[in-house]
């Protein structure tokens, strides 16, 4: 068997193809993101409520990154994790601390846009690494467990992370950070999403990537043909945690405000709902993330022409957002019930 390194193995196997692929990715992705960024900024400028639309757009990007990274763990590797918000919290708080405590010493108190951007990009990478380390620490012991036990232990770790943050005075406890610099251009969010999608896609469609799928489909069978299942489970967990941390770092500065309560079990469930609704593929997951992020805004009456908003009473628009979580839960139940109808015993495995 050819030993390919467990890393991002590009899809084309031939070496020159790989070189062309990576050159295209490294140069192309940032350029495309930059172009998209300019297009979005100028489109948004003509929108009546620019700040609101921009905020929703940033949320979409962050949520899509979270969902795609969780899909690697829950979807492709079949390890049901309920603690993604915990890794997101670690990334968000690392970024907040690095920007707030260390930032002024590195780039000064009144940095230029370029200096701030470069420093923030570095902070994002570091936040992801810290979160990946946490993923390793959590993953190695808990991935011995399976199914519902793993779910509940990851939930437990997520809650423990939140309670610790709540008690850390240096992280300002329950008050959180409320005076962070606001990131209002989608460039970095887009770039992170693209990198996340490319990494996850290449990871699972590489030769080695089959191992992830084999762990999901039948762990015992995978083990018996020589797949080191623990290694793949932990790898998926670490990569997933890395991008959750990166997304958390972006979240902290697109919101400019973080509190431990924002990273609770409900947040993890929102991401799980995106993965489940996405049906296991990356494209589906991104679509689900877009849909479920827009849903509460639509319920509030956002992004709707005046005519439509005025057609219904104000009281309805005020009452509807309360039903957001109810809709999420109905989606989860319906998705499972519909999925079970098509195939009974021995059918296709659930990917969520």
């Amino acid at each position, binding site marked *: 068997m050819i030993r390919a390194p467990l890393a991002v193995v590009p899809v084309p196997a031939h070496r020159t193809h790989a070189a062309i692929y990576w050159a295209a990715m490294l140069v192309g992705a940032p350029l495309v993101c930059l172009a998209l960024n300019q297009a979005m900024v100028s489109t948004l400028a003509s929108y009546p409520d620019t700040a609101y639309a921009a905020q929703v757009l940033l949320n979409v990007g962050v949520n899509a990154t979270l969902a795609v990274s969780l899909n690697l763990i829950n979807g492709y590797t*079949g390890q*049901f994790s309920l603690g993604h918000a915990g890794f997101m919290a670690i990334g968000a708080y690392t970024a907040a601390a690095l920007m707030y405590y260390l930032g002024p010493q590195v780039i000064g108190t009144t940095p230029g846009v370029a200096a701030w951007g470069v420093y923030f990009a570095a902070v994002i990478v570091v936040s992801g690494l810290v979160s990946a380390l946490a993923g390793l620490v959590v993953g190695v*012991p*808990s991935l*011995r*467990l399976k*199914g*519902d*036990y793993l*779910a*509940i*232990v990851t*939930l*437990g*770790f997520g*809650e*423990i992370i939140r*309670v*610790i943050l*709540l*008690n850390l005075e240096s992280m300002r406890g329950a008050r959180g950070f409320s005076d962070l610099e606001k990131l209002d251009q989608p460039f970095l969010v887009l770039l992170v999403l693209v990198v996340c999608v490319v990494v996850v896609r290449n990871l699972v469609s590489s030769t080695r990537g089959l191992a992830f799928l084999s762990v999901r489909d039948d762990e*015992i069978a995978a083990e018996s043909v020589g797949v080191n299942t623990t290694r793949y489970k932990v790898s998926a967990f670490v990569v997933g945690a890395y991008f959750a941390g990166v997304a958390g770092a972006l979240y902290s500065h697109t919101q400019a405000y973080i509190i431990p309560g924002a990273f609770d*079990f409900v947040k993890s*469930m929102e991401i*799980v709902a995106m993965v*489940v609704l996405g049906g296991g593929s990356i494209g589906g997951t991104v679509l689900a993330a877009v849909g479920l992020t827009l849903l509460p805004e639509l319920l509030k009456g956002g992004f709707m022409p005046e005519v439509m908003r005025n057609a219904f009473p104000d009281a309805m628009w005020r009452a509807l957002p*309360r*039903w*957001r*979580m*109810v809709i*999420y*839960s*109905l*989606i*989860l*139940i319906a*998705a*499972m*019930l519909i*999925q*079970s*109808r098509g195939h*009974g*015993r021995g059918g296709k*495995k*659930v990917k*969520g």
Partner: protein
Amino acid sequence: MATFVQQLINGVAWGSVYALIALGYTMVYGVLRMINFAHGDVVMVGAMFGLWLAGLCGAVAGPEFTGSFTAFLIVLPVSMAFCALVGIAIEQLAYRPLRRSPRIAVLITAIGVSFLLEYGGQAVLGATPRAFPRLVGGTTWTFFEQTTVLEDGSMHFSSLVISSIDLIIVSVSLALMLALQFIVFGTKIGKAMRAVAFSHDAARLMGINVDRIITFTFGLGSALAAAAGVLLAIKVQSAEPLMGLMPGLKAFVAAVLGGIGNIPGAVVGGLVLGVAETMVAGYLSSTYKDAIAFVVLILILLFKPSGLFGTPQVEKV
């Protein structure tokens, strides 16, 4: 010393509530091998329904004991019966169609049902906690009153307070557990439950209607959850749609601690967890109180996944 005993009494009161909830988790796990994530929210439904019922009985929430003990004797069983129906409905509508699906699909559905009850309750009833009437009177007995004058001249009071609420909680829980013990080990349907927990196929071959036993188990567990909900609401004097979330998760930990599927284990696990939690709250910090259950869970699953009284499982291909 008085502080220690005080925390112990508190812990036993909380622990008996956890134990009542844990029994439902452990019984359902026994017959279906699934974690009924929505079980904690049945606790909430029980408390909310109890609140409505207490209002009908003329009990008014307030600092004084306004209801009568008769109201409590009506609220508790009626609320239990109502939640038994709720539990059965959840099983029939959400879990039964998934009997042959992978366990993760069932778990996701259970989480969906849990969120539906929590946020459906919040959307319909509002998120603000409602005051729950003191149905069982607030008599307290004080023991070992002591006033010590410390060296710096300040005075330090210590005493041991036992409230009638705690006594009622512990005794009602005990009575329900004994009743459950009788049902499971002393009746025909209990024998059928144990047979189904052992093996669905073997039970079916013996002429047991497995689906009916599963329905019965859900009803029984949900009734206990409702009792826990009413007792919990009386203790904290309030009820709100999210009140079942944390006690539910902690009771699950208690069930795992005792060895999931094991009925006496759930009771011991509940008591141990309740005491551990109040000790942490009393001696360390109350903000860490909610984390202790998860720390216990992680340690148990890593070092003795079968729990204190469970039998180790062997995976077969």
